């Protein structure tokens, strides 16, 4: 039961936003208790749906005054628990702030609201042969605001860089409700200023809420060519990737799907005609000037041959290319055909150690008796082992978590990282110390306190809470003291 004070707070919220933009009934709030990472859940205190920057400010100030934590949410497709509420936080849903505010076709810049769907931006500007390059697999639903929070990647980020490489400026409602502007559309990250846009991007929603985002648009390449090769072994597929990259070719994307994934995809609406007898398929996309693409394609064809590809499909027309990609983009959801729940892991290893890592990942899966499939950005060495399981089975769930933990440890041991693009969220908090020591974490913690001194903005994410760090706990009071002096 809520305290009278809380009830009063919620009543004020509903008075301000009405019942359809402020949900408070616990049963309805269930729908917000997790994102794409369903293992950990947290029921929010309320959900509020602002439509303007001013409303976001009002909400943040309101909850800041009451000392109630809050977390911004876009489409809820995050895979690490980023927007899952902790400590009864209030969810600030940005889905209604989805306008494209301005497009400068000459300078190739767009200003958008945070709730705009990634793919909708490309749809808006495609008439002028432009696109927004970062393409997470959920791009047809995920929002730009969420992409910024997580510094999302995607298949084409191998060549074009992650979200952070495409954000020029952000307008942010700081955790105390003030409005700040970082970066500048004409000179991103100029030498004269601190790179606050860089800091903000990937801060997993803990530094504030972006309400206006200026992004770089990219010109469509002159020519795009997609090749799909099937191999009898995973080793051969990974070998082909290494050969392609070491030959100096930079494809727009290099993706591998293993057999179990292929079969699930082929049984779904995203059926792409992937050969089901192959142990692995490698999806290569080339783009650029026509001559260069042709030259690279010829070399890649040769690579496929030397690595004993059993079948090669090629597509240059948009429709056929979309079909080849469709399977890859829908791979995650198609896993629903294997079991009731899915845990998508996100580890990175050096590309040269892919084969070795995958073998060990398979061993870990077998040891813990879990159903494990692999689909990954091979060019970046960014693995996505998918574990299908029945979340209602306590024992299976424990084995899944243990397997996941060991896989991430393995990635670090191989000289890699615990996350390539999904973020730490709440999912990988306990793995963070595998990569960073106390001094590293202290620094991160201090930076966060500068933006978010009271830890009300998406608490309990990205940086693990550590005990015995006296200096860190002193920080909020100090920062507030300094800020108050400045204001006075």
């Amino acid at each position, binding site marked *: 039961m809520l305290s009278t004070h809380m009830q009063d707070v919620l009543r004020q919220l509903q008075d301000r936003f009405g019942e*359809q933009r402020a*949900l408070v*009934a*616990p*049963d*309805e709030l*269930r*729908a*917000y208790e*997790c*994102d*794409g990472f*369903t293992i950990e859940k947290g029921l929010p205190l309320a*959900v509020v*749906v602002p439509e303007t920057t001013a409303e976001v400010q009002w909400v943040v100030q309101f909850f800041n005054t009451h000392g109630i934590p809050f977390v911004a949410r876009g*489409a*809820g*497709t995050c895979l690490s628990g980023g927007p899952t509420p902790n400590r009864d936080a209030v969810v600030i*849903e940005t*889905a*209604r702030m*989805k306008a494209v505010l301005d497009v400068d076709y000459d300078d190739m810049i767009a200003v958008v609201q945070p*709730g705009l*769907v990634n793919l909708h931006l490309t749809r808006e500007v495609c008439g002028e042969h432009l696109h927004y390059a970062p393409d997470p697999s*959920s791009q*047809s*639903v*995920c929002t730009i605001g969420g992409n910024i929070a997580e510094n999302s990647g995607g298949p084409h980020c191998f060549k074009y860089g992650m979200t952070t490489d495409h954000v020029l400026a952000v307008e942010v409602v700081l955790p105390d409700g003030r409005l700040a502007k970082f970066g500048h559309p004409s000179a991103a990250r100029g030498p004269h200023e601190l790179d606050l846009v860089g800091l903000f991007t990937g801060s997993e929603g803990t530094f504030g809420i972006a309400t206006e985002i200026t992004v770089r648009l990219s010109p469509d390449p002159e020519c795009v060519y997609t090749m799909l090769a099937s191999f009898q072994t995973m080793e051969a597929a990974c070998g082909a990737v290494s050969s392609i990259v070491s030959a100096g070719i930079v494809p727009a994307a290099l993706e591998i799907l293993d057999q179990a994934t292929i079969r699930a*995809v082929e*049984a*779904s*609406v*995203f059926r792409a005609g992937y050969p089901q007898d192959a142990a692995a398929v490698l999806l290569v996309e080339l783009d650029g000037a026509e001559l260069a693409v042709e030259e690279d394609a010829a070399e890649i064809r040769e690579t496929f041959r030397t690595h004993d590809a059993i079948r090669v499909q090629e597509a240059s027309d948009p429709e056929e290319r979309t079909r080849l990609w469709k399977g890859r983009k*829908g*791979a*995650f*959801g*198609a*896993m*629903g*055909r294997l079991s*009731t*729940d*899915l845990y998508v892991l996100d580890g990175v290893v050096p590309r040269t150690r892919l084969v070795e890592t995958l073998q060990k990942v398979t061993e870990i899966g077998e040891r813990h008796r879990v159903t494990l499939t692999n689909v990954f950005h091979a060019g970046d060495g960014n693995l996505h082992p998918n574990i299908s399981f029945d979340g*209602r089975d*306590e024992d299976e769930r424990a084995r899944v978590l243990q397997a996941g933990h060991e896989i991430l440890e393995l990635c670090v041991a191989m000289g890699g990282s615990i996350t390539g693009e999904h973020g730490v969220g709440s999912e990988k908090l306990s793995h963070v110390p595998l990569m960073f020591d106390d001094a590293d974490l202290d620094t991160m913690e201090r930076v966060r306190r500068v933006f978010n001194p009271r830890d009300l903005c998406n608490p309990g994410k990205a940086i693990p809470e550590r005990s015995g760090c006296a200096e860190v706990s002193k920080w909020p009071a100090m920062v507030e003291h300094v800020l108050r002096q400045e204001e006075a």
Partner: protein
Amino acid sequence: MTDLPKAIDSYTKSLDCVHCGLCIEACPTYDVLGLETDSPRGRIYLMRALAEERIEDPYSIRPALDRCLGCRACETVCPSGVQYGQLIETVRSEMADRWPEKGLASRLRRFLLTHVVARQGRLRLAFRFAWLAERIGLRWLARKTGLLPATMDRLVPHVPAGRFRRSLAGLHKPKGEVRGRVQLFTGCVMEQVFGDINQKTLTLLLDNGFEVEVPKQQRCCGALHLHNGQASVTHGLARENIEAFSGDVPVIHNSAGCGAALAEYGEVLGDEDAERFSARCRDITAFLDDVGMSATPAPFPHRVAYDAPCHLCHAQKVRRAPSDLLRQVPDLELVQHPDSENCCGSAGIYNILQPELAGEIGRKKARHLIETGAEVVATGNPGCMMQIRAHLAECGSNSRVVHPIELLLADRDKS
């Protein structure tokens, strides 16, 4: 969880969802409201929680479930193949039994659906009274006094004259060579409000060389009852229809909503007879596209937009046939309509139950249609025709709304 929830039919279906969220943007209510509770993923999550007995007050999640249009656009994009339409209808039926909707309006709705819509004789009588009432100016009076709001007035069609409401029951033979035989499903409200379209469908089939049998004993398809959580009424109607349409010739229908319901008798009843019947049911456009038109349609020198009814494209997966047929009409220019497969907000009687949301979705559809520059909109579902007509008019457009088959006739003035 050690204590497994009760085995409810729908529960297993809800487990197919792995929460990827690729469906949410396809959902018309999520598009307007921006709420997870009003998205397919959110609704599935709530239905699963209900089955797992994690919902304390089922009445509090009811509005979110009731706001679902049942358009099934989410099924088209779902990589896991979640059978959302069947899932929500089963849950609605369970909820209607265990947590019945309160209030006079819902009781009245259930009464009308069970005792009037499901009984063709009474429905015909009701429409005769409605026609009389309109003739003596009662509708005009209701509008003037505000009893019938203007938005509703635009939506509710006028009752056509008696000759357009007559049953077509019997065997009809084509003039020339016979290519084959079919049975025609004429629907309940369809017969009374869109009788002319039934007549045109009949003419079109005859013109194309088909013998048409219209079984006299046929009944309402039961779709509205199923949407309203009255599964048992639907089951009864389904059995009667299966009996009325005995034989093995194709059963042709011209209303996407009814067609989707007929196609699911097999799934709903779960027996072989029903499955065989469902497999025989074909939308008129899908059927004609398959067999090919032998009678060339009359020229139609206009810009036409094809708007796909959800229950045709998402539920029956009939996507290309209507446009392919329209392209065969001489002089007809089929315009690009990217919004074609998005719901118009009609959704059975949704536009009467949820007028605000349906209005918002309808206006959006009208705006997109106006942008296409079409003079005529073709869509193969009576509910969609009424909804689109009303919202085009509201947005100041005078584009006509027709059923695609109206444009396929060899002699449009004849029937």
